[in-house]
């Protein structure tokens, strides 16, 4: 019974903390890490009009963390006048990616078909990645809305990864690994990514070995990126809640251990 009661208080405390911090509107300063700066510099260094393939490799469940990451990267790419091709390796990422691209494009006055296109979802991610290495138009004969590939001006002359400056994988799982294992290793395309915080350590070895070119991680990464492009969004907004929640968890760990050691000492005395 006590356990249930303590759990309910913990849940209530977390709910109140998140509600208050999200509602406060306070935006914390987040010093930009080298990793995030590397990704920013990479996109910044590409010649204007470079072609970027943005793959939305995530599900709807991670949206609160993925949306700020995707928004920041798309805003930067559109601001630099790069041409973008969107796609998804997970069915749920398809509609989210389409919407994100559409919203970011509207902010910078970009036109569908001329400045960007959205190819949609292709089942079986390994086959899709390999198949695009042979021929992107053969893999996606039509875009997300059913228009023929050849009818889209932005896709003129885009046949394989050789015509793409980099693949930008926005992921909440291990799908970016497949981009590196098949896209990078087989066809030599550069891979950059924006991933959830939980996946950062998974990709650290690939980043250190150079198999991944650059990476931005989690809400913190999104907040840093928003600072770099001077365009505050969901990352900055969520940092206070994330920081408060982390502190809350640390306090709970401390209290839990305190009660554990007190109980142990009491037992030993007996």
């Amino acid at each position: 019974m006590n356990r249930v009661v303590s759990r309910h208080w913990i849940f209530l405390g977390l709910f109140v903390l998140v509600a208050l911090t999200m509602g406060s509107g306070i935006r914390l300063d987040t010093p930009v890490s080298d990793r995030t700066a590397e990704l920013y510099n990479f996109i910044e260094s590409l010649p204007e009009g470079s072609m970027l393939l943005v793959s939305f490799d995530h599900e709807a469940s991670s949206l609160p963390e993925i949306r700020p990451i995707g928004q920041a990267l798309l805003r930067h790419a559109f601001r630099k006048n790069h041409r973008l091709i969107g796609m998804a390796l997970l069915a749920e990422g398809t509609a989210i990616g389409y919407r994100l691209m559409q919203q970011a494009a509207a902010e910078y006055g970009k036109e569908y078909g001329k400045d960007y296109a959205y190819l949609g979802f292709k089942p079986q991610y390994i086959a899709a990645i390999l198949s695009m290495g042979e021929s992107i138009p053969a893999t996606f004969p039509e875009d997300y809305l059913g228009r023929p590939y050849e009818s889209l001006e932005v896709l003129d002359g885009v046949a394989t990864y050789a015509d793409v400056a980099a693949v930008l994988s926005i992921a909440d799982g291990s799908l970016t690994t497949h981009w590196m294992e098949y896209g990078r290793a087989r066809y030599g395309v550069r891979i950059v990514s924006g991933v959830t915080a939980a996946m950062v350590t998974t990709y650290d070895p690939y980043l250190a070995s150079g198999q991944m070119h650059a990476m931005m991680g989690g809400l913190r990464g999104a907040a840093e990126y928003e600072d770099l492009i001077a365009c505050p969004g969901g990352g900055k907004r969520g940092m206070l809640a994330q920081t408060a929640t982390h502190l809350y968890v640390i306090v709970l760990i401390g209290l839990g251990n305190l009660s554990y050691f007190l109980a142990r000492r009491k037992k030993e005395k007996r």
Partner: protein
Amino acid sequence: MNRRVALVICFGFGVVMFAQYFSKHPLARGVNQAVLEYWQIIFAFALLLGVVSFFQNNIKQIGHGSDRPYRTVSLVGLLAMPVAAVIGGIGAGSPFLWIFENVQAPMQSTVFALLAFFVASASFRGFRARSVPAAILLGAAILILLSRSAIGGPLSGWLPDTADWIRHHPSMAARRAILIGIGLGSLTTSLRVIVGIERTWLGGKK
């Protein structure tokens, strides 16, 4: 006999796909593209099979009266999305996209967000420094938690540096060892399947 045919097909495809990887000849590239297209078609049929199986199973369970309201909602959702997509399209402003953005995405995010509550509860009740390794794990977890929040840097300069050191050395070493192990395991298993030593995929009998 049937098993032998399957083994020969498996061996043939294994050898051809392995060999084509190293060739830039148009024939090799054509074979690769054709096999990849078939792979996607097979996967699409597998998805269809999943949908049919889900539908049949739920209809059967509704008939038995188990979890009737939940299963009905599942089936309505399963039917509503493709119907909405066919009637109203999938572009901006379509009912399909509206349902996805306003029903499915918030529901999934909500379920995922529940994890935070369980983590908070577990951190209080389960994350104890019962031994030296547990205490080290606990210390590393606290350092990483602080470094990923906005106060890590301002609190102390060495905090993010120490957290980065943990990530880039002990954590990465362990992860690399696991990745190399997985790679070697995949390689040997693939070889065993191609040459016919590993036959459990045929049904388990030798």
